[in-house]
């Protein structure tokens, strides 16, 4: 691929006015911006041009931000194969980038480039105008070099939207600076997340917690025996929602139609067969299996999800925030080889849980890609970002 950008805005609309006037923000082509191609990385939307602005895009523009272009992305944002997310920010072509976080993609893309990657609480940022895949788990994430930029952008895009009923009417809209006193803050380490690391990764992770302990934070080890079930729940529920969600790509309203079909069913079969790439097709078949063959498996996963949510609520009363590794570095190999569902889910083992629960989480870089993941209770975004800012400042001071 010759460029990080799938599409560049030929008429940069930076007014320079407004609180975000200094920011150039990249998006991905699954965020509708009127007149921009929005293929969401899929043949299912080949040639599709967005008709109106997503709420996030409209809000950013209103605050003066320059939407500079859309970067290349994986098919419907699932996994990071073929994704060049975060590279525009890394190369200085943009100050920030919006990346849909379905299972941790935003955070892991940031990790690859040593940047901050933030997934807000579910229901904080409107998804109206986003071309989604897993409606109950996905959130519009933000990648930037520093937490302050993320905070500014989040403040611009968060809050109720009459077009997205998953954003409650009382969703917070203020993210002003909050003082962080390390002495009064406890960080919980989920033991099962830590022990899933390779020895090498674990040494690095432990060094991070040591640094924070030295800075005055209280570090607590918390058991969560069911932690590995997050991945299971995500994989089952996500595939069912994806299969249902992508039902609309029928080569009637958008996308490409394979010519020569003799009847509707043939048209659907052929066009949809050609529309989806191998990874997504596997995911959709798995989803169809649970929808049409084994619906009880889906219901079981939803039962487990209920239990995990209540266990997580319990856990977050024992520590102010959670600190976890972001990835098992063994699971990351060359990003452009063929990926299976197993590979994809191995990569998001440490990140997908917040998509299941709707908690905010972000990747905070330490020495580039050897950073950590921080998470808080749902809608604790303001404090979580303040914590991130505090730690980043700490790093800059060389502590």
């Amino acid at each position, binding site marked *: 691929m010759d460029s990080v950008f799938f599409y560049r805005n030929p008429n940069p609309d930076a007014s320079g006015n407004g609180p975000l006037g200094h920011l150039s923000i990249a998006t991905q082509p699954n965020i509708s911006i009127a007149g921009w191609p929005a293929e969401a990385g899929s043949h299912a939307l080949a040639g599709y041009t967005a008709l109106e602005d997503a709420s996030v895009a409209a809000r950013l523009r209103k605050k003066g931000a320059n939407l500079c272009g859309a970067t290349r992305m994986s098919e419907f944002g699932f996994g990071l194969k073929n994704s060049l997310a975060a590279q525009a920010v890394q190369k200085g072509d943009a100050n920030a980038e919006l990346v849909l976080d379905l299972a941790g993609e935003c955070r892991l893309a940031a990790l690859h480039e040593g940047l901050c990657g933030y997934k807000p609480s579910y229901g904080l940022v409107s998804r109206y105008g986003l071309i989604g895949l897993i409606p109950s788990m996905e959130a519009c994430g933000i990648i930037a070099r520093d937490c302050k930029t993320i905070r500014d952008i989040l403040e611009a895009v968060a809050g109720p939207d009459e077009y997205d*009923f998953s954003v409650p009417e009382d969703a917070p809209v203020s993210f002003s600076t909050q003082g962080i006193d390390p002495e009064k803050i406890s960080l919980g380490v989920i033991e099962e997340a830590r022990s899933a690391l390779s020895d090498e990764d674990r040494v690095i992770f432990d060094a991070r917690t040591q640094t924070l302990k030295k800075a005055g934070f209280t570090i607590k080890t918390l058991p969560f025996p069911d932690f590995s079930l997050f991945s299971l729940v995500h994989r089952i529920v996500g595939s069912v929602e994806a299969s249902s969600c992508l039902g609309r790509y029928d080569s*009637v309203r958008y996308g490409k139609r394979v010519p020569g079909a003799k009847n509707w069913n043939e048209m659907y079969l052929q066009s*949809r067969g050609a529309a989806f790439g191998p990874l997504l097709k596997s995911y959709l078949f798995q989803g169809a299996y649970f929808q049409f063959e084994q619906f009880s498996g889906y219901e079981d996963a939803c039962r487990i999800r209920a239990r995990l949510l209540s266990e997580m609520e319990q856990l977050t009363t024992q520590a102010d925030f959670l600190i976890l590794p972001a990835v098992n570095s063994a699971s990351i190999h060359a990003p452009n080889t063929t990926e299976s569902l197993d590979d994809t889910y191995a990569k998001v083992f440490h990140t997908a849980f917040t998509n299941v629960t709707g908690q905010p989480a972000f990747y905070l870089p330490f020495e580039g890609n050897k950073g950590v993941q921080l998470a808080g209770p749902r809608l604790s975004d303001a404090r979580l970002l303040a914590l991130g800012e505090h730690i980043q400042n700490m790093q800059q001071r060389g502590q």
Partner: protein
Amino acid sequence: MRFTERVFCGQLTPDHLGKTVQLAGWVDAYRDHGGLLFIHLRDRSGIIQIVVSPDVAQEDVCLRAATLRAEYCVAVAGEVRKRVNGTENPNIDTGSIEVMVSDLKILSESEALPFAISDKAMVAGAASAGAEQVAEDLRLQYRYLDIRRPSMRDNLMARHRIFQCVREFLDSKGFVEVETPVLTMSTPEGARDYLVPSRVHPQNFYALPQSPQLFKQLLMIGGMERYFQLARCFRDEDLRPNRQPEFTQLDLEASFIDEEFLYELIEELTVRMFAVGGIALPRPFARMTHAEAMEKTGSDRPDLRFGLHFVDVTNVFSRTNYSIFRQILQRGGCIKGINIKGQSESLSKNVLQNEYAREIAPSFGAKGMTWMRAEGGKLESNIVQYFSDQELDELKQRFDVQDGDVLIMVADPSYAVVTSALGHLRLHLADRLGLIPENCFYPVWITDFPLFEATDAGGVTSSHHPFTAPDRVDFDPKNIEELLSLRSRAYDLVMNGEELGGGSIRINNRDVQRKIFAALGLTEEEMKEKFGFFLRAFDFGAPPHGGLALGMDRTVSMILQTPSIREVIAFPKNRSAGCPLTGAPSEVKREQLAELGLLNLGGEETLPGDSHRENIVDRLSWVSRIGISEAERPVMEKVLSQASELSALARQRAGDMTPIHSAVPVTNRLRPGTQENRSPLAQSGQLLKTAPSIKGDYFKVTAVLE
């Protein structure tokens, strides 16, 4: 009130003026003019306005009348009088008179209706509500109400009259109506049978007849000479818009006759049936051989109401430099085309290239379509430069080209592809360009069908059924090429592109019949097993005979010009082969299955024909409408085996909490201050802009649903 003295609403005329009549029927509509009540009373014969006035009727009658609602069943008595000048209603036959009610009895009340039944306006000039807007499944669910509607009632009564006409005519010609069994053996029609399990013989099945074919031939051998039956037949085929799982056919057979007898008979019968609907058919009916029909229209049921006949231009291009044509001709192919006279204004380059050549022709199986438009004495197209002047001149001559004409041509190595694709294009163009005249009926006999068709396995199969007589009997049953050149003594009656029926002269010589079976590759054993009882009958002096079957639902539908055959059937199945009224087909109790010995049918073995459905990859590919290639199959198999493991794990760890479907409980909210409106994106046409194919204001899809 005595029903013996009842007269029918629709039969009241000014002759009844001043007389007191007894009526009974349903309240079609009513209007209350402050104590003066106007009611449309409807029975099978029509509608009469009845008036309840306190000046004429007793108080108790007025009070009862005030409770009337639509579709109450009532009986009334009253005097017929002329309507006041200026209040006549030309929408109903009895519009000049009305009945002043003196007595009224409510026979039965009606609940609120699922849809409006009345389709006659009470006031002259007012719009009448049609039931056409009502969802068909709702109409079928309340078919008994639907039948009260005059248009359905008229359809059923016209159907009755057409059937009566058939019976009377055939009776006059010496035909005898004989019933044949419905519980029978599978017959060789080739469609799927409906099976009925036998309780007395567990795990044995009757088949419902696809037609009474064997029985009517046995009746001929039985010496009945002329037989007919309005027979109910059953075929378990995939549904098409105008197909029913059970249907009625006029089945007839006669001995000691030839084709001409049947043509004469059926033409006269068809003319009489269409006359019931006020349609005068021209006689004699045209005749066309199967080969000519294919050659000219690409269809064995040609619609001859319009021209657009094919012209073969294969030899125009025998030395062409145009490589696509040259390659096709080198492979033994052919090139045929149609001159669409004077339509160049309707068929722009854009329409021809982007719609027809790129989309429509490929959807009909053609690999491509060539078009040319005649302008200023020349042929123009995107590829005209590849042709020599001589070729273009020859084309102009062959197609008799004048300015404003449009030529389309299809070339393919396969004759079948060329004729089929061009045949579909012919119909598509005629429809699009409005070339089909209204109220025109063009009956045609299609004759000289091929007796056999080639099978993929290198053998032959019967085009109709194996009892059809061949045009000659001196053939070698082993010589495939010769077999394929045989014509049958079969004929189809086709009208306006629809096959109304067909039949043949049958084989009555057992040696010929054995030769046909041998040609089909059946051994002596197999013949015995399949048709033993039938062949045995031919050992006892079978007369020469032949016959025909006419699809009566389709014929009646065509005579009455209804949009679907369901409009002429009292209780039809819907498009999913179900009956919304009764709920058939339905599950049955296990005890019933046990009684029939069906519980463990097939045992552990996979049932025949079940293997496709058993393949989970194919099934999921189908239900989620995602095609997969053979190369992808192993990946999907692995995905599904993993999915089953995931499912097992989830079951193991499920616990007992209530399932949730989101991290945040979903609440419904209103958008205050907003009103329903058509999306501005739809209004401006922007929604359609990124669609793969559109037509006007609509998304365009493949024409056939199935």
